[in-house]
């Protein structure tokens, strides 16, 4: 069931594969079929991209933080981005987003996710239900035929982390500042990928990538991958295990010793036992509180000795 021409696009497994294959269509309408195929595929790909970005942004809300999962999702986004770059749709999409006067549904979705309490940013923007349709219409008519090598001078327009103030132009948040590591796989090597800077410098004017090499914004990358690092040192090993063992004469671990000692001197009360311990001195029976603490000590010692 290889619907798509080999070597050009990747398959989408489910979610609405139409049985349209350019190979199956007659020669009568190849371009129409190709465009239909392309838009269906592009829709699915875009949907996957959106889903992945949301997953990444919400990764800190998982019950159990999962670095592996985030890395795999991030890699998926990169793959989609690479493919869209190669067929030019990436550039088209970011241009369309940048030029949009009002935020699209998708941008609102990401903005809602990353919303900070900034009334100025939120003025005039009401959250809408998440929908892919709005943006799809934006560039639907500009589909690029995917067959063969697409010779594009790939310059990425600036991508910035989402911030409420600049949601009109910002789209991709997260660690997709396209650091140099991504370019290792490009055979041409001249893909001048813009690396995004802080949100303040972003694309509100709809600027294109102009080859400036900005330093990668590692903030959002750190936000995603950095949250998995457990920064706080662990509490020290249970003191009950360590300190007690260090203070007490080990012979008191031997229950027989203790019991023998008690049986041979039946008048020896708990306080005598306590006397023998280096960390305790004789305690007077002066108040019920000290009595209680002594009983506590005895039970405590017995607990250590019997190991329960």
């Amino acid at each position: 069931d290889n619907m798509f021409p080999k070597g050009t696009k990747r398959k989408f497994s489910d979610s609405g594969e139409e049985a349209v294959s350019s190979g199956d269509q007659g020669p009568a309408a190849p371009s129409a079929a190709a465009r239909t195929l392309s838009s269906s595929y592009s829709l699915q790909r875009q949907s996957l991209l959106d889903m992945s970005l949301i997953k990444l942004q919400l990764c800190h809300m998982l019950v159990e933080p999962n670095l592996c999962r985030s890395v795999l999702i991030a890699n998926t986004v990169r793959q989609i981005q690479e493919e869209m770059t190669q067929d030019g749709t990436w550039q088209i999409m970011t241009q369309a987003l940048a030029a949009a006067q009002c935020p699209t549904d998708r941008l609102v979705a990401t903005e809602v996710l990353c919303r900070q309490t900034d009334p100025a940013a939120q003025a005039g923007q009401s959250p809408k239900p998440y929908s892919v349709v709005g943006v799809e219409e934006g560039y639907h008519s500009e589909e690029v035929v995917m067959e063969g090598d697409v010779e594009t001078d790939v310059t990425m327009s600036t991508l910035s982390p989402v911030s409420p103030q600049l949601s009109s132009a910002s789209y991709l948040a997260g660690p997709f500042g396209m650091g140099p590591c991504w370019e290792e796989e490009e055979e041409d090597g001249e893909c001048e990928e813009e690396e995004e800077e802080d949100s303040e410098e972003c694309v509100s004017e709809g600027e294109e990538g102009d080859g400036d090499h900005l330093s990668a914004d590692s903030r959002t990358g750190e936000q995603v991958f950095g949250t998995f690092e457990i920064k706080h040192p662990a509490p020290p090993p249970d003191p009950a295990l360590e300190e007690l063992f260090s203070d007490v004469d080990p012979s008191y671990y031997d229950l027989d010793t203790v019991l023998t000692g008690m049986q041979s001197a039946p008048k020896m009360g708990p306080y005598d036992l306590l006397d023998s311990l280096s960390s305790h001195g004789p305690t007077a029976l002066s108040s019920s509180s000290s009595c209680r603490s002594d009983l506590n000590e005895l039970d405590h010692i017995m607990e250590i000795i019997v190991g329960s």
Partner: protein
Amino acid sequence: MGEDAESPKINHTFLRDYVTEADVISTVEFNQTGDLLATGDKGGRVVIFQRETEVSLQSVFSSLSALGSRKVNQRRWARQGTLGSTMSTAHKTIKLWKVSERDKRPEGYNLKDEEGRLKDISTITSLQVPVLKPTDLMVEVRPRRVFANGHTYHVNSISVNSDGETYLSADDLRINMWHLGITDRSFNIVDIKPANMEDLTEVITAAEFHPHHCHLFVYSSSKGTLRLCDMRASALCDKHTKLFEEPEDPGNRSFFSEIISSVSDVKFSHSGRYLLTRDYLTAKVWDINMDKGPVETFQVHEYLRSKLCSLYENDCIFDKFECVWNSSDSVIMTGAYNSFFRMFDRETGRGVTLEAWRESSKPRAVLRTRRVYTGGKRRRGDVGVDSLDFTKKILHMAWHPSENIIAIAATNNLYIFQDRVNPETQAQ
């Protein structure tokens, strides 16, 4: 390969299941002799089951004691102690527990009553010394060592070395080696953390020491690779001795290819000659002498390949299934969805599907094989792909070291099955 064929010679008996009190079981492991079975759960408890020593084919594992700790990710048995020591890892802390038998217990505490509740101090009029009274033989588990501060990411694997003295612990980015007796120092042997976390594209998913060669270990990655490392070569084993990777199948390429290639578990065979790996759709056997690709590939649930997008959406695609060898390395086993688990006979290549679900099993019932309907003639009892319950995942399991007894963790239930026809593993 004939899939899901009836295998009349395998006659499994369902013995009993035990519902653990709280949470989902997160790890299952037999000890070296197979007398003890340990489970850990997400509530942080460790439960040890002991095999009753009766001369009978029907061995029963009864729950002995539970001890609280952090959430337990993995557990491995070490050889020390009267019955052994078991190690558990929770988040980034590793604990060594001593398992020992006890047949006496103290009675007569002053401040606690028999149930352990605190007494009202005003009711205490005399002092007594607790005495030890004989009791039923118990196995108790006590924490002995805490190996803390070795990891900044969550530990996914621990593996005790064949030397019985050291063990390794692996998190997403690093592997440390420890001595069982030293808690404040560990030796970092693998570090794949990039200087800039933005450059991170691959993580460590599992690691294990070789069963016989104490200088060899393997670790798997999220990109589907295995790296065999020899600690004699260099102190920091970032450079692998061998890299095992299967070339990608161009016909099956999709955006999910990398995710489904991520190795969720890796296990050396008992012989040490082979490696067993599990990725999302398959289980693979590798010969450690051959790094170009696996020598055997078993389809666990190929019918899910067309559902990957949905499984990505509901995060099931990130589920980490374990895999195990039987004692003679002739059969491998791994889990699936809908409470199903799969066994594959390496010799014939055939697989069977079995189910760990109490509603369909009674004690001593014979497990019948199940089948997922993927086309062709539908048989009674077949389950459609769309009817599969993806919340019922069999992720964790263990195979007895010498007998055909298996332990299957299904959410918060533990199932133990025994092969009554072939209770002992036959030498191959």
